[in-house]
């Protein structure tokens, strides 16, 4: 990275002590460096997660076949090259944990919140750069602790990524619930600390450190998404921490929060009485459901930005997009019970959860329609970032619609924990958020590394990944509807499921192709950090502020004063402009909103938005009164 020479050119007048390698690349407090750290750690974790999925897919496709590769990597856990059932579940568990928390929470939201919040809001850095640094290092530590559980003789946690007790509390019930589970819980506790440190920072930066003129109604949708994500995280992660702590107590100190009436061979009746395993599930899903929105909302924010930029059109219905995001955020706290329809909870509760869950589909639908309307009559530029953003929309629709089946308590009786669920969440959360992440990486790579990625390889990467993801997950719907349960080590012992043997083989091959295609990305990503073509300042001709700061990434972001903002982020292809974009920081002679009825240019520049007849402005004013005036 060629930023060293420029590092201390930041002229915002602070004290500038000399930067060492350690303070610049390791314990950096610069948000851009921390973003890169999050991203690269996330990519490494992602590779591990994908690799694990290939290992257990081998087992599902060819259950009786010996694989040298399994023996090589797993040793005694795959004696003779065949995965043991316990270790199959351990792989699935760690795969899920890595993907959900480490890649799509920290890797996605950590990377892009860090990179974009200061740059798009127009601030020198995060509210607390030190906390920001801590946030990364807690995340790093947490990753190390999680991965270290692979070296435990009883294997990693193996009760599924949801680690339901009693299974996760009883080392005698499954070996993975011994030391492996302790490490899992420790890792998650560290992870939560990281998420909270980051979240507080994101919220305070967005609310307090926007540049002059950057009112809430001019914020790019990315920032809105990151803000709401951080709020969700801040409100829900502590609950998971509580759940994890109680589980730690039950495991190590003999309490009975989740345990009751347990008898195991060799152990006899346990002393625990009075606890409820279902309590854990309530606590877990109180985080767990918002968590899926913590994953998808940043991806949606990135998509809004990438699609608008590359369609050269304003994002359609900016206000509606924000209201949908807020609606999703609020409702996401009230739907956790849809994961528990068949735990024996009161049917009336089931009714309420079904009702709210189905309602949450409305804001999601609005977002999809708005994306379509944004594409309509655009001037679409197919950059790799754009292709991945479109991939997200496609997955979001395919996966979101199947949610309407699962949200229905009655239908869920016949679908819960089947492969239908695996298909649903891999499309709507897994694939679509991963595609959002890729869209962000391709779009902001020049911003992060000052260089460009190879475009052709990007498109190749997109098509291979896109097609193989559909091939992997689409057929799983039908397996689920035919009753095939998830988290099964093999299907050959049940004659009824044998018809799926060839489908399982096809899925595994597609998964391997999709995984190998990621090597193209890795090559593209890592080699171009050093040898890529230098990027121009604003490669996508984008409106937002991050492209006004020098790409080599100086400390404090802007060499001089921070630019002032004069309009919203999505003024593309304005009829009154020659160029098809109108960056936020270019002084304009209007109030920042295009009025088609008055084609001629207005002469007064206004700082605040006045209430006009335009309904949109009314929303804006409402939003402003909720979130306060921008203090600049």
């Amino acid at each position, binding site marked *: 990275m060629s930023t060293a020479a420029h590092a201390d050119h930041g002229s915002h007048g602070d004290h500038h002590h000399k930067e060492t390698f350690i303070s610049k690349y390791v314990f950096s407090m610069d948000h851009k460096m921390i973003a890169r750290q999050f991203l690269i750690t996330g990519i490494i974790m992602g590779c591990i997660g994908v690799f694990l999925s290939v290992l257990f897919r081998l087992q599902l496709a060819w259950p009786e076949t*010996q694989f040298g590769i399994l023996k090589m990597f797993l040793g005694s856990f795959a004696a003779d090259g065949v995965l043991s059932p316990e270790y199959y579940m351990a792989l699935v568990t760690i795969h899920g944990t890595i993907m959900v928390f480490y890649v799509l929470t920290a890797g996605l939201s950590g990377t892009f919140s860090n990179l974009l919040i200061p740059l798009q809001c127009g601030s020198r850095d995060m509210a607390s750069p030190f906390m920001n640094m801590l946030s990364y290092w807690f995340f790093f530590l947490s990753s190390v602790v999680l991965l270290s559980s692979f070296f435990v003789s009883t294997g990693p946690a193996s009760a599924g990524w949801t680690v339901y007790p009693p299974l996760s509390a009883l080392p005698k019930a499954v070996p993975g619930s011994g030391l492996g589970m302790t490490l899992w819980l420790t890792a998650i506790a560290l992870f939560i600390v990281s998420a909270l440190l980051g979240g507080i920072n994101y919220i305070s930066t967005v609310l307090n450190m926007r540049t002059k003129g950057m009112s809430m109604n001019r914020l790019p949708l990315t920032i809105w998404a990151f803000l709401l994500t951080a709020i969700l995280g801040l409100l829900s992660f502590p609950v998971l921490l509580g759940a994890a702590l109680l589980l730690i107590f039950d495991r190590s100190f003999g309490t009975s929060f989740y345990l009751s009436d347990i008898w195991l061979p060799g152990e006899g009746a346990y002393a625990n009485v009075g606890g409820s395993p279902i309590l854990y599930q309530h606590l877990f899903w109180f985080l767990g459901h918002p968590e899926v929105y913590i994953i998808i909302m940043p991806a949606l924010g990135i998509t809004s930005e990438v699609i608008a930029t590359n369609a050269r059109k304003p994002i359609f219905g900016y206000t509606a997009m924000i209201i949908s995001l807020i609606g999703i955020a609020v409702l996401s706290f009230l739907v956790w019970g849809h994961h528990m329809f068949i735990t024996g909870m009161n049917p009336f509760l089931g009714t309420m959860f079904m009702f709210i869950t189905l309602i949450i589909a409305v804001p999601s639908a609005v977002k999809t329609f708005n994306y379509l309307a944004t594409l309509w009559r655009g001037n679409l530029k197919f950059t790799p970032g754009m292709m991945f953003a479109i991939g997200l929309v496609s997955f979001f629709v395919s996966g979101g619609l199947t949610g309407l089946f699962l949200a229905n308590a009655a239908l869920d009786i016949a679908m819960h924990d089947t492969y239908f669920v695996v298909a649903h969440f891999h499309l709507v959360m897994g694939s679509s958020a991963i595609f959002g992440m890729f869209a962000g990486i391709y779009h902001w790579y020049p911003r992060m590394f000052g260089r460009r990625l190879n*475009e052709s390889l990007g498109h190749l990467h997109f098509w291979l990944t896109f097609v193989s993801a559909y091939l992997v997950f689409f057929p799983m719907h039908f397996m689920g509807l035919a009753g095939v349960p998830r988290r099964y080590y093999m299907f050959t012992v049940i004659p009824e499921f044998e018809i799926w043997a060839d489908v399982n083989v096809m899925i595994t091959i597609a998964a391997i192709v999709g995984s190998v295609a990621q090597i193209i990305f890795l090559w593209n990503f890592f080699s171009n950090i050093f040898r890529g073509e230098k990027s121009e300042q604003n490669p996508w001709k984008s409106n937002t502020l991050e492209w006004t700061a020098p790409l080599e990434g100086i400390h404090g972001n802007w060499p001089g004063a921070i630019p002032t903002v004069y309009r919203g982020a999505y003024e593309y292809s304005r009829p009154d402009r020659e160029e098809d974009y109108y960056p936020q920081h270019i002084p304009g002679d209007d109030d920042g909103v295009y009025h088609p009825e008055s084609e001629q240019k207005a002469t007064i520049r206004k700082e605040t938005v006045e209430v006009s007849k335009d309904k949109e402005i009314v929303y804006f004013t409402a939003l402003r009164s909720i979130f306060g005036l921008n203090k600049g």
Partner: protein
Amino acid sequence: MKKTFKLLAGILGLISLFGLLHQTDFSLVQLAASEPSAAETATQSSINWLLIIVSILIGGIIVLIFDITNLTTRVTGKNILDWNKLNAWLCLVFLILGMGAAFWEFFYHGKYVITEKATAHAENMNMMFNATLFFTGIVFVIVQVLLFYFLFKYRTKEGRKATYYSHNNKLEIVWTAIPFVTMAVLVLMGMKTWSNITKKSSDNPKEIEIYAYQFGWNARYSGADNIFGEASFNYISGTNPLGLPVDAEIDALIVSLTKELNGDTIEVNGEPRIIPGLYTQVKDSIFNLYHQSLLEEASGIGLTYTEDKRNALQKKIESIESGAAMADLEAAIYRKEKQIQRIAQIRSAPSAKETIFNGSTYDDVISNEIHLVKGEEVIFLFRARDVIHSAWMPHFKVQMNVVPGMQTRFRFTPIKTTAEARVERGNEEYDYYMFCNKVCGSAHYNMKIKVVVETQAEFDEWMKTQKPAFAKVNENEVQLEEVAPEASDSAKIENKELALK
């Protein structure tokens, strides 16, 4: 061009690396069935490596080609590959092929989707499913078609400018309202279906207890008296696996628990031999344990002494040294004392004799198959022994979690016999099963129990072949045994005091 050379060199390097690895006898895939000879393995492995090398070569060449196109674009400023055009066409192709594939899949694998009406509520659920499928299917097709069509249609072209169109409140209200109304319809239908399935039945359905444990199921029928009685995990023993309140069994359990705590004397070759109880083991302190395990293992040392044994011994010593062994002992003592206490407490309740230990469970039938009567409403009462399981009968659209410490239930009416299902499938061997659908440990994937639906006559016939779980003992015996727990209780306290000293 320098960079291209570097790339080429890199790929060549990789290939030679794999070539080197090729020398080692490492094969990626070996078939378990046909144990190949050494020569076969060698050829197989070279084929494998050949495949790997060829695919890497092909991959490398593709990457190279793309890299070169990029380089030439950079040098000449002209696009060889116009990705805008290419992607637009690919989108169109993907739309057509993708939709085609989705529909093919829908009809090809769609026929495996369970639509069978094996229970009364299946009809209702199928309707609900179809309604949801109808709405979502329409949206799926419309949105995906529009998405990819727009991509094709509005791709960038020379001189084209996008339409500035930032919002349209009317439009947005419309497409908020339409999903809202659709959702309202689905919610209302869903509520109706849900309450149909979950509502309390007016007449008394037949109760069957479904008992889940790692890794199997049992069904318990209440026998002639129609009373289940209060089973509990406290009473579980080898001879009473479901923990039924059977006095004789519980007494025996307490005796054996007390022996585990206090130790026992057995006769070996006509000589008495003391088996140390948990209390003694704790009192004997670490050194004795250490010594004892060494002695135990030492007797095995000799020709049979293997690496594995050495490791096991090592582990044992480690657990003693780290205090884990001691902690385990103490936990075991605590567990067993508590269990004895709890049983005593339950038994000492004033009405325990009438309500729990009234012998009503003696005639219960415990079975390894679930037998149901066609057309007869039944309610499953679920009980778990260890961890959460889930009772999953896909063809009946029945699923309910089985949670330790909490009774769950599911009510339904089977309406198709196994015989009818066999005829329908043309498969004489076909059987319905209940599977476990909540991950519960290593053999989760193989935890199942046969479900037989039959006519009332067949059911009665089957029931006749079943033995009651416990023979009724006569009053005297019960009376006699009741003294036992108290005795062992006091013995326990005595021993504890001893242990403390």
